[in-house]
């Protein structure tokens, strides 16, 4: 167990091992996304009101889910970095951040474009939309931390500071959601709130599952792909880089 943990501290080991994993997750992402989206957009039956608009769900639901999961993941990685000081975790957190931010954007846009035919407007101050909007700003703040703080406190300190920001943010996310819901019930007429959808037949939710799994795999794939390069960038002067990537570094 301890040895397994120790392995994660080794940048070289991670760099070499992650090549294969990232490929595997890449293929899985391709498989499940194709399956889920083609099934969802082409073969799944129309809604009971003969409505095709709901197909946006196959992108909206996974992206909204992953938007939150990714932030949580970043916070957990930050916690692991602060407690066990495993070198690779802040790099993983940094690497997955753009994917999370993209998911928020996609969730917001797909929410708006789903809402337009449903509610008659692109944007309503619905609790979910509003809290997703603030999640977007949390991502942007974290991104700014990763890109600006190294200049003022050095890279390693900046990673730790960003981890603290992510943890503070993740504690706040449920509070923000709760407060926005409270605010929403005060202000919004109940008629245009997202209510529970009618129960779906299997032919509708199975593609949704496939799509969600596809998004998860995509997250891991993109995270590993970026993390490998960020690790290389951070450790460019180390001996193991020359050993592993002689073509990149050694060639003069």
């Amino acid at each position, binding site marked *: 167990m301890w040895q397994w943990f120790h392995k994660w501290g080794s940048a070289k080991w991670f760099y070499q091992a992650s090549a294969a994993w990232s490929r595997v997750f890449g293929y899985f992402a391709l498989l499940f996304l194709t399956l889920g989206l083609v099934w969802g957009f082409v073969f799944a039956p129309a809604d009971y009101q003969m409505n095709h608009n709901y197909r946006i769900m196959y992108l909206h639901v996974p992206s909204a889910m992953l938007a939150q999961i990714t932030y949580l993941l970043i916070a957990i990685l930050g916690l692991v970095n602060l407690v066990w000081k495993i070198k690779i975790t802040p790099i993983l957190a940094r690497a997955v951040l753009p994917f999370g931010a993209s998911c928020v954007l996609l969730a917001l846009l797909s929410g708006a474009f789903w809402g337009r035919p449903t509610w008659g407007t692109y944007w309503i101050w619905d609790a979910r939309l509003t809290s997703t909007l*603030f999640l977007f700003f949390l991502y942007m703040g974290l991104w700014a931390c990763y890109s600006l703080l190294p200049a*003022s406190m050095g890279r390693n300190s900046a990673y*730790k*500071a960003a981890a603290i*920001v992510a943890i*503070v943010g993740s504690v706040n996310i449920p509070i923000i959601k709760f*407060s926005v819901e*409270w605010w929403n019930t005060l202000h919004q007429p109940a008629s245009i709130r997202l209510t529970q959808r009618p129960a779906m037949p299997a032919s509708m939710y199975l593609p949704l599952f496939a799509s969600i799994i596809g998004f998860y795999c995509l997250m891991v794939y993109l995270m590993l792909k970026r993390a490998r390069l960020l690790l290389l960038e951070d450790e460019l002067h180390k001996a193991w880089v020359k050993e592993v990537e002689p073509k990149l570094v050694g060639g003069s």
Partner: protein
Amino acid sequence: MINAMLRREWLLLWRRPQDMLQPITLLLLLILVFPMALDLTQFSLPSLGWPVLLNAVLLSLLLGMEQLFAEDQRTGYLDQVRMSYGLYAYVLIKLVCHWLRVWLPLVVVLPLVIFFYQMPLSALPVLLLALSLASAAVVVFAAFAAALTLGLARAGMLMALLVLPLLVPVLVFAAATGQAVLMVEPWQGAILWLAAITCLAWSLLPWAISSVLELANH
């Protein structure tokens, strides 16, 4: 050692009246200019006063807050504190004194807002309580951002980006309290949530702030 730090911040609180006046001048002007943009036949002033005040408080307290630790950093006082009793006590003292610095003028401004926005005077005590809690939360969150951006040029934008989303719950519950009071509805629920958030922030964030200050290298 704690006494020395406390005495320093307490003396500085009174020796720098400009620090106390600057945010409050902005706040007052924002509030008094705002009705100029309104068609007063369509909007009712009493229902606008409180939300406008809250937003103005958010903005004016954030302004200049990035300087909270900057001078102590520049003069090396922060180094001496890090070498002696550690940062946690320093952060707490700094936060309490800074909160006093912004709270005292707010006490003066609130009756003015009530007067200019034609709100009932009976709402004053609850509004003052809500304003105290909200400003305390704003101070501690903004201090967190100030610690993070210490040593960065042009930190103001990053401060706003980091702080404002985190302050959404504070804004919501403070606004809800005021709204309930003005409509003569039960306001206790909202203000209890506000108090809970402020307490949570004050119990956790000073740790976060001192660990971020600990990370500085210069």
